[in-house]
């Protein structure tokens, strides 16, 4: 994770994993050794002292979460340096994600964890395509299953696992096979656009096999085990929505819909 703000975010999340509150200052991360590049990087990012940089970084985190209608999982009292837990479950999720990151053998666990968090934020049905694929070993059986989600015959080609359809959120609009799908592809690693582009292409090909809607009627997202900040986005418009762990925090409000008349 290249962004020191979110390195700090995860460091705080880890420290709060088994307590309700804790004072954490720059000294806590210095204590292991005076030479601490993580705090140096943070200081450089905000062009200020390490201590001041922590306050500025937390303010940045708050803005980042607010922009996603996500609840910041802790609050920070700048005067006393005390962090208090707001959302223990989400902090535990972050702790688990740190453990899973970039470990190939647990990508299924990553998908399941993402699915469970996603369920807090969306309405309608969410579906992990990897699950039936594990059960339905034969490609033909899995293709039959996919027809139930609106795909035409033979959506998956031989040797494909899930055709890039890691998680499908079936929008509560229209009726099968005219229900649009949101596909969330899970990348259990740090942000990597090349990886994401490859996954996008694979998923795009599968969406082409939908029975009634063209690819344009669906939406593709790629979710990283990381944080998507403005400074890492490519300048050009993207073909998929980049998402990160902060997009999976508990929503700020239960009914975020706006009705603008």
């Amino acid at each position: 994770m290249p962004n020191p703000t979110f390195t700090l975010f995860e460091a705080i999340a880890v420290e709060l994993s088994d307590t309700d509150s804790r004072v954490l200052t720059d000294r806590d991360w210095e204590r292991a050794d005076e030479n601490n590049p993580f705090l140096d990087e943070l200081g450089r990012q905000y062009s200020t002292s390490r201590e001041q940089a922590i306050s500025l970084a937390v303010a940045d985190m708050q803005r980042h979460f607010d922009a996603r209608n996500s609840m910041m999982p802790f609050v920070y009292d700048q005067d006393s340096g005390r962090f208090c837990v707001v959302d223990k479950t989400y902090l535990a999720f972050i702790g688990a994600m740190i453990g899973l990151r970039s470990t190939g053998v647990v990508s299924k666990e990553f998908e399941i964890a993402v699915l469970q968090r996603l369920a807090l934020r969306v309405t309608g049905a969410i579906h992990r395509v990897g699950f039936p694929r594990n059960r339905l070993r034969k490609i033909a059986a899995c293709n039959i299953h996919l027809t139930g989600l609106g795909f035409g015959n033979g959506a998956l080609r031989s040797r494909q696992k899930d055709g890039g359809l890691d998680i499908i959120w079936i929008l509560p609009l229209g009726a099968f096979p005219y229900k649009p799908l949101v596909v969330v592809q899970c990348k259990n690693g740090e942000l990597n656009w090349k990886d994401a582009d490859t996954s996008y292409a694979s998923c795009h090909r599968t969406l082409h096999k939908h029975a009634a809607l063209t690819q344009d009627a669906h939406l593709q997202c790629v979710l990283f085990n990381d944080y998507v900040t403005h400074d890492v986005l490519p300048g050009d418009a993207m073909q998929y929505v980049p998402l990160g762990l902060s997009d999976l925090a508990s929503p700020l409000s239960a009914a975020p819909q706006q009705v603008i008349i």
Partner: protein
Amino acid sequence: MTPKAEIVGNIPAFKRVSPDDLLYDPENPRFGDDFKATSNQQDQIQKYLFDRPNFASELVDSFLENGFIEYEPLVVRPASGGKWVIVEGNRRLAAIKHIRSHPLEYALAAIQRLNLVPVITFPSAQNVAAKNNIRVYLGVRHLFGFREWPPYSKALFLDAEINRSGLSKILKEMRLTKDTVRRLVVPLRLLVKTDTTLASNEDFWVLAEALTRTGTKQFISLNINPDTYEVVSVNKSRFLELLEFLYGKKVKQSRDPATKVVSETREVKLLAKVLVSDKAYKVLAKSRNLEDAAILVDTRAEGMGRLQRLAKSAPIIAKQVTEGSKSPEAEDLRINAIAFAKAAARFLNKQK
């Protein structure tokens, strides 16, 4: 010559006193020029000590967990009316006073444990010699201080303590962050698991820092139990290769530092980026040059920055190396370096 502590009048004594009888000294050197208060403004001093920038707040949890550690008494000098003025331990006193003044926030038992705290009393500081004793004491304690254990010694101590008492107990008692413990204990346990040692001139902290990076962990397929920090599994040959990148290739019983690719801790971040790219890793393994390999993992923005620097320096380098030469090759190099710089500038301008 061994200097002698000069004690005038009484000798230092050990006592237990109520924190209510302890006063802050606004003249204490800790306060410097940033903060001004008088002896009557004890509440302001309390706030200044408890919050930023002194953060006595961070000691609260330790006092609640451990009570007052008897082996580190506060140091005081007598004041009028049976009171004492703090010479050493301002932050600790601020945390204790905070706990005692918030009976609804903290458990009664924890508060009661702090009804009396141990102090060492300096003799009355009314004469010059006694004042001098206090000045020397504070100077030695805060300016000379003590040298921290090296990271490897800390790691050995923590590992033994965790094995004896368990991780969560150690975290609570010592008020260490998990991050600190993990940074120290995981590299030590990895060395043990892979039956490897570091030489005394090989900085343990470089390995510790490298292992905080996702790319490095991915490279050696490191799997850690997040609750105990036990090493579940690791790719040993990759780990040995990582040690070569950090400290140099093994030559008989030692390492050749000329073959290491990381020259300072800051570069471990770049190394981690390189190690997760197959292409960049191959270049690194062959060239042993981190900069060469890093080009392959540049983001577009980093690549543009590199191009800009190169465009600036190419004509200068060409001029320098061909100075005095009128050969067609030298002329060709100068012309093409300028042409390259111009083309790069045009490209970079277009991107803005």
